[in-house]
């Protein structure tokens, strides 16, 4: 186990050093990424300037949803990049080589790349999150801070799981399935707003199929001390982040099945 972590760190440090070879490019990409994501918040702000509130939710409250999901997604995007680009490995047959090495495939695929550029979204999300935390009338008790951190971690796990799932599908399709973007990028877009504003079928999808509500909506309600308009009990709001960890675990089980079904393209 310890040995695996060492290997992972070695891989990651190599990836970081290689990205640092092109510093100017890295800086431009990161700033570009930061501005791209900041523009979305600008749009959110413009809508609040026009409408005042969102069905009783204030800008600061929505900013808390926004900040937490963006931070979680930025971290997942950076560390799961290896899975994101995995279909190309299947297509080229490069995955064969990984199977020969005496380490787990998850480790090797995950460690292929750590995309530093995603710091752009991370910084933007953190700024919004900290602003929301300060602007809100919330007493930040120890329990709430722990819940907030757990929620972000769970969110990262959930998105990581989705990236793993996307990669797993490639064992069968060989191609990258673009439609998965609707649950990754679309998921972030969705979770930037409280889930209650959406239509019932849509809410159900993001609660029971992809448990996005567990890593955003429910715990944020607990932090805000708001009763759920949909009637979820308080206890559920506090334990909901567990859903994110469970989801990742299930996706990794799916990955194992996928590896067993792998047939090399043999090119």
């Amino acid at each position, binding site marked *: 186990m310890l040995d695996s972590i060492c290997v992972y760190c070695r891989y990651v440090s190599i990836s970081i050093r290689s990205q640092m070879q092109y510093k100017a*490019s890295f800086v*431009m*990409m990161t*700033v*570009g*990424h930061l*501005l*791209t994501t900041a*523009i*979305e918040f*600008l*749009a959110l702000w*413009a*809508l609040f*300037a*026009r*409408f*005042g*509130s*969102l*069905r*009783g939710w204030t800008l600061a409250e929505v900013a808390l949803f926004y900040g937490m999901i963006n931070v979680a997604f930025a971290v997942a995007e950076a560390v799961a990049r290896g899975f994101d680009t995995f279909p190309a490995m299947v297509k080229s047959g490069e995955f064969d080589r990984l199977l020969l090495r005496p380490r787990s495939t998850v480790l090797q695929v995950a460690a292929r790349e750590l995309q530093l550029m995603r710091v752009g979204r991370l910084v933007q999300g953190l700024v919004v999150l900290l602003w929301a935390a300060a602007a809100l009338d919330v007493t930040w008790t120890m329990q709430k801070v722990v819940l907030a951190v757990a929620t972000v971690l769970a969110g990262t796990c959930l998105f990581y799981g989705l990236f793993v799932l996307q990669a797993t599908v490639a064992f069968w399709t060989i191609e990258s*399935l*673009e*439609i998965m*973007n*609707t649950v990754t990028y*679309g998921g972030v*877009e*969705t979770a930037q*707003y409280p889930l209650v*504003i*959406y*239509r019932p079928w*849509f809410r159900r999808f993001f609660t029971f199929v992809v448990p996005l509500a567990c890593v955003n909506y429910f715990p944020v309600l607990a932090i805000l001390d708001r009763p759920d308009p949909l009637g979820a009990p308080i206890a559920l709001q506090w334990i909901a982040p567990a859903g994110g960890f469970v989801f990742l675990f299930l996706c990794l089980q799916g990955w194992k099945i996928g590896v067993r079904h792998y047939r090399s393209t043999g090119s």
Partner: protein
Amino acid sequence: MIAYWAILSARFRALLQYRAAAAAGFGTQLFWGLIRVMIFGAFYQSSNAVQPMSYQDVVSYVWLGQAMILLVLFRPDVEVQEMIRSGTVAYEMLRPLDVYLVWFTRAVAMRTAPVLLRAVPMFIVAGLLLGLKAPASPQAACLWALSTAMAVLLSAAIGTLMTVSMLWTIAGDGIGRLVPAATFILSGMIVPLPLFPDWAQPVLNFLPFRGLADVPFRLYTGHIAPAEGVAALAHQLAWTVALIALGRWLLVRGMRRLVVQGG
């Protein structure tokens, strides 16, 4: 002229082949549109004040945006970018053709075939099921069609300008990211422009980007009355001409200082 027409039709037919990508994109766009419509719906339920645009118009605006997204969401011409990087761009200068026009023609093809592939199914699905209304009047429909054609040219002019700028930046990663991000919000793709704060309106009205999406969409829904349509079209035309002139001028300067790496 025949040569440019040949380039246009060849590129158009080549790009028409990417149907699987269009189908995948269609699914994503559909999902995106649904989210946007629900979010706007929630905002409209939150306030009783009279808004500068009706909810029904916003719904149509969102779906038109999803149908025409590729007019706004563009990248520099990847093939030309590769030519600049590898140095084969020198061949472009040897041909007995105007380089700017060749690149511009390619840009026009890039903004017609893929847009058509996505727009047609989106109009059918959104029109039948998701609340995209028909054009407000026959005049509105005509003006919308004209304005959309202008938007294609304007979009091609901006795209070619980005491509030309690659002569300076080579890698083009920075510009390739920043321009589309700015264009996206300033054209009304994220939030319809009339919903932005009132103090921002003069700036948004002046900039060229509203000609890509906001102008044709509002002509479609009748939010810009047909009487004012001519002024809106003139705004698009003026910017298109200006950006083409700028692109040409930059290209001449860029080509003069171009150093091709040997090999």
